[in-house]
């Protein structure tokens, strides 16, 4: 997985591309660190460029959600499609995390 972060007014948008899976755990730490940015209200994870997510990848989204919640930052997962959308829907991640389709 590759990611690119972009600063907006009171938000950070992180765009993920490739495959989000077991081997990306180290990368997650870098994304979690972005939550420490100043005056952050929203944290948008754009997954529209993601081709695949496995259960470990879903776990990473849940970890991000918990970290964001503790810092009072609203986490939004945006634009899942195809296999990624199927996996997110199957696991009902939408009950825990805000998903924007």
């Amino acid at each position: 997985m590759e990611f690119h972060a972009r600063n907006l007014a009171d938000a950070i948008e992180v765009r993920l591309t490739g495959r989000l899976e077991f081997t990306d755990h180290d990368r997650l730490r870098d994304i979690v660190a972005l939550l420490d940015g100043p005056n952050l209200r929203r944290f948008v994870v754009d997954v529209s460029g993601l081709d695949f997510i496995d259960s470990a990848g879903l776990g990473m989204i849940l970890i991000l959600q918990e970290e964001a919640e503790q810092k009072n930052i609203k986490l939004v997962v945006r634009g899942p499609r195809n296999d990624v959308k199927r996996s997110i829907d199957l696991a009902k991640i939408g009950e825990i995390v805000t998903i924007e389709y």
Partner: protein
Amino acid sequence: MAISLDDCRVLIVDDNEFNRKSLSLLLTRSGIRNIAFATDGVDGLAKVETFRPDLVLLDVAMPRMDGLEMCRQLRSDPRNAELPILFQTALDRDEEQVACFNAGGNDFISKPIRPGECIARVRHQLERRKLFRDLTAFRERVQKELLHAHAMQISLLPESRSIAKLGEIYGLDITSHFETSSELGGDLWSIFEVDADRIGFLIVDFAGHGITAAINTFRLHTLFERSSVSRKDPAEWLTYLNVALKEVLPTGQFATAFYCVLDKQTNLLTYAGAGAPNPILCVDGELTLLDSSGLLLGISHHAKYRTQHVLLPPGGFLLLYSDALLECRGVDGAPFGQEAVLAQVRKMVAADRRPADPVSVLLEPFLEQVSRPLRDDLTLIWIGRR
């Protein structure tokens, strides 16, 4: 890192007595007490056998067999593949030194011997050997422990004898496949006798694989034994497992699951899912994907699960599987996906609705293409009604 050289054994192979004595004196002064001598290559090979040195200090030019040949012969024996061999040579041309390495030497010291350099190189080789041995011992111990743990993990699964017995009682043919991607895995499946007519099947896949995921399968299995919660109602059983797992699992660890109960009198299959792959139901040759969506187990105390119903009359079957089956990649590098799995089941049903070992028939084309070990743990359970 300075280690004690007290118990290190060094063999000096040199045809010159003066050299043997002066090397031995140097080694003794640095704390090495176990020293043996050989006067040529033939003698040296014999001494390696009897003395079992930790390091050989080897002269190059000697009568009968020279040092290079002795080194080559030592290296051809796997037992001596890692034995440190230090050449001592007066030859200082590049190709002569390269010949020492090509023969299998680890390093060389130049003659005339300089005491400081000699001891430093000996020490370096002995320390490397000790580290290598420690690592090898560690690896062997872990491998042995993992092997035991693997056997323990297999013992969590239903035994073939009890599967056959339950098959007789409930009129079912049950076959399964369980393969972990490393010694230990995060998959688990189980059968529950609900009452005289009803039998329950659970398939669970913890996120990730390896030791962490495997420990979670043991945690879950303990919950089966301990709980008196009814397994009649799938949503209720998943709700119980979810809350119990939420108590013990850290964030980021969770499981997908599917649980179903089959009633042999009414043909009713009741089921609930927690994000497991969609099971495949076959009734009268028609295939359907069952809804297995549901919040993953162990994420939220408030997760709600929904029990659904469908008929599974005699002659039909249900196929449960872990997502590794969908994510297995073929020769083209692309995952097989749901369509390929459905197509394979359809093909099997068309050829023979009830082969003797349906799981093997289904898996054959997949396992032919994937490379071992698998990237993820693979479980399949085929439940056929007689």
